[in-house]
């Protein structure tokens, strides 16, 4: 952008300096965690800790992955992946279907159903944890992927998003499809789904991060260490009295726990921003 408000000279440098300072503040905790994951426990327990990486990266990460704390981290990462994908795919599928029904069909209780789904916006899992836990326990779903995933997949936001998207799709397309003899199922698969592709992808990015970062729910539902997810499992590694896990291993675990969602954000930045902005509407 050029013109009257173009910045010159000292101002430009101050701007860059300010941004670099901001980035330094934001990146500092991660840098410290990274450095801590490459040194030994001895380097860390006598402050100050080093500020540059040491030579023990491989052994710390291997110890985290293979031994970890109460469960090896590879197992927790796998559980996180299953949970994140389960929540993401589950939410997208049930929301696509219900939005399709609400937009493209006239049926009894249509608006009632719509409002029932809408109301779930007001009930984040943190608010109803004890009774939800009891429901899941009484269904025998503790320590299972189903118990981890199902209570988190109802989503009014995704349903809204798809509803809004479907509303913008011209009626002529539907008419043309009907003239060609396509039924509702054909229309959904051949026309609606391909047209929603980028929106689904953008939502996928956001929901994956949401699913991966779940903490409270896995904390309650997975009492068996082999079902722990990495984001909640790292808590069990933190020093509390009878500490056995060393800080470098904990920090290696923290880095591993951050890596998948961070890669998703950086690698799919366009989709991520699109998903973020759209899901706020």
């Amino acid at each position, binding site marked *: 952008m050029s013109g*009257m408000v173009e910045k010159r000279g000292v101002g430009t440098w101050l701007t860059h300096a300010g941004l670099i300072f901001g980035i330094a503040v934001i990146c500092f905790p991660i840098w410290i965690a990274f450095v801590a994951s490459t040194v030994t426990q001895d380097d860390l327990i006598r402050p100050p800790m080093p500020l540059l990486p040491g030579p023990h990266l491989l052994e710390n990460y291997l110890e985290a992955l293979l031994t970890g704390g109460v469960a090896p981290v590879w197992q927790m990462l796998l559980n996180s992946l299953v949970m994140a994908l389960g929540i993401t795919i589950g939410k997208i599928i049930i929301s696509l279907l219900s939005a399709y029904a609400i937009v493209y069909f006239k049926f009894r209780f249509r608006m009632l159903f719509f409002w029932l789904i809408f109301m779930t916006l007001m009930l984040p899992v943190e*608010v109803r944890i004890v009774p939800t836990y009891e429901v899941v326990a009484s269904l025998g779903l503790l320590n299972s992927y189903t118990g981890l995933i199902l209570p988190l997949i*109802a989503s009014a936001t995704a349903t809204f998003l798809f509803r809004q998207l479907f509303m913008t799709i011209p009626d002529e397309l539907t008419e043309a499809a009907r003239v060609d003899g396509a039924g509702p199922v054909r229309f959904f698969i051949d026309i609606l789904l391909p047209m929603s592709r980028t929106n689904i992808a953008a939502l996928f990015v956001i929901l994956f991060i949401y699913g991966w970062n*779940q903490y409270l729910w896995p904390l309650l539902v997975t009492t068996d260490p082999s079902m722990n997810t990495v984001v909640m499992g790292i808590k069990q590694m933190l020093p509390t009295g009878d500490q056995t896990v060393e800080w470098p291993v904990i920090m290696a675990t923290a880095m591993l726990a951050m890596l998948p969602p961070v890669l998703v954000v950086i690698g799919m930045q366009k989709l991520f921003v699109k998903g973020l902005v759209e899901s706020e509407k």
Partner: protein
Amino acid sequence: MEKRVVFDNRWLPYLLVAPQLLVTFVFFFWPAGQAIYQSAFIPDPFGLKTQFVGFGNFEYLFGNRYYRESFLTTAVFSVLVTVSAMSFALWLAVLADRVIKGSSAYRTLLIWPYAVAPAIAGVLWLFMFNPFTGIIAWMLSQMGYVWNHNLDGGQAMALVVAASAWKQISYNFLFFLAGLQAIPKSVIEAAAIDGASFWRRFWTIVFPLLSPTTFFLLVVNIIYAFFDTFGVIHTITKGGPEQSTTILVYKVFSDGFVGQDLGSSAAQSVVLLLLVGILTVVQFRFIERRVHY
């Protein structure tokens, strides 16, 4: 808005909404109903039967000093998190908006903390501020300031605020930047021609034009501080020392699961439910945008 062209089918639409409705009923309405129901009862000491107490749990709750203090803690915590995360993000967004070259690199470097889980953010900050070995705790001690958030409630609050705000900066930054870029450059140029300085232009033109974004982020950040920061609190302070960082969501958890006080926890759930309801209405009425999944 309605579709002009719709499909006719007797059972298909019900089949399509069934999965979503089923999940919603089993995991949303049934538990919420249970919370409301349980909030009117207290279990006997052996958990064998329950006694109806009406609004007794609520009376007990609001008569409880710790619960009332938890409200205050939540308010202080939310205001601090919201103000610090938003002001730092706005400052960065204003700078990034001024940059012509390399702005996408800056953006990339600033947005990724969004992907860090609150609980992991808690672990990172806990590590830096560990009273015995943490790098920042050490730096502070070199300056003659003793850091121990396990003993000092004020320090504990500062730490959970910092960790929570840190994670939320990227989100606010993205929306502020988008808001800034949507402001017509001609307006700002006109003011510049009139000789208004950068800060004068900012406070008299840019900031007022940015207010829809600001209001939207205000609600989003409050909701974030209320509910999504559980992981930060649980990893860093567990609500302590002496409940100084026990926000409402943490109290539902600690009373319900750690303290096994189901009646009180259910009553707290109902109170939170009302709070979320109010926040949601505020959000829809004034901002018409929405965050939670």
